[in-house]
């Protein structure tokens, strides 16, 4: 449920909108549901709205955990 994907904010536009970029696809979306978004932020995009900022540090931590498990397994 609730198709949503991370999108990189490229440029803020009028009426609290912004252009986001998803691997080269650019689309204007609404920032009405989020606060303090600046270009370079990633947001979770759902039905034309940013639902939340993506916490890039947390993302890296999660990935690091996967990687760690990886090396753990290799050591098994």
């Amino acid at each position, binding site marked *: *449920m*609730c*198709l949503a*994907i991370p*999108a990189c904010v490229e440029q803020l536009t009028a009426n609290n909108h912004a252009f986001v970029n*998803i*691997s*080269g*696809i*650019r*689309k204007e979306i609404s920032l009405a549901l989020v606060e303090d978004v600046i270009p370079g932020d990633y947001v979770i*995009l*759902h*039905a034309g709205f940013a639902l939340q900022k993506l916490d890039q540090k947390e993302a890296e931590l999660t990935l690091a955990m996967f990687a760690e498990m990886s090396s753990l397994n290799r050591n098994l």
Partner: protein
Amino acid sequence: MPNNGKVKPGYKRTLDLKHGCVEMVHGNGGRSMAQLIQQMFVAAFDNEFLRLMNDQACFPVFGGRMVMSTDSHVVTPLFFPGGDIGSLSIHGTINDIVMSGAKPCYLAASFILEEGFPLADLKRIVDSMAQATKAARVPIVTGDTKVVEKNSGDGVFITTTGIGMVPEGIYISCENARPGDKILVSGTLGDHGIAIMAWRENLSFQTNIESDTAPLHDLVAKMISTTSNIHVLRDPTRGGVASALNEIAQQSSVGMMLYENKLPILEQVQAACEFLGFDPLYIANEGKLIAICAAEDAENLLNAMQAHPLGNNAAIIGEVIEDTHCFVQMQTRFGGKRVVDWLNGEQLPRIC
């Protein structure tokens, strides 16, 4: 003053290509229609057959196996990055001809124009068709024009029909896939469909993906000269690779196994699919082909394809397997398996 009998050929007042638009009279069989045909179509497609302006074209053929294919083109928008309905209508039919291994010879083009369609746009489309036929060296030898009332059409529909001759010894057909055969595609998947969608109302997004629309007769000629072991050729247009492979599986009574990690897909295409909820395997292509050939020739064929400009990104994406249920399956990037079913319903933007 009335001119003195030395009327130069051509209509006294030429078509107003700048401000004019299609009117009902352009389809009524009268002089306005004759003028449209003369100044719009014959002028652009000019060749010895069409010039005779009969209701049919006559040309010599040699004996042998001939193929015929027809497609109506109804694309929205009419103009899109990488092409337009004009070039598409030429490439589409050439490709269907070529998928039998035949050399395309002659084309027929039939137009259904909506009252009010700008003549300037029609000219752009016709010029694009002319260029496409010239590039592919396949003339439009006969045609037809109908005009329908405003709101009974959608700008312009073009039906093209082509005929071609199959070289001696070639038997390529969708019922020829055999277990063990390899499945190849000639390049990245879904470019055309995504390029088109970017321009749909309520869906607009910016992308530099272009339609892949292209005529594949050169590529196929090269492939055929590389190996005589091509069993199936198919252009995965509407319904994409998934639907085309399901059809072939049915026609040949086989199953298929694809490898997800071998599918050539542009990152932008994948990204567009992610945010719209689509699957690139179901997106239309207009300048790509699927080839199924004996396993021992697959690498050779792949190399030949990759050496051609229209096959740069060719890849072996799977193999034909035995399966009485004719499932097309896929080994996912994750090591899991899943069915790759026919397209169900429409590809509509989704929220879930």
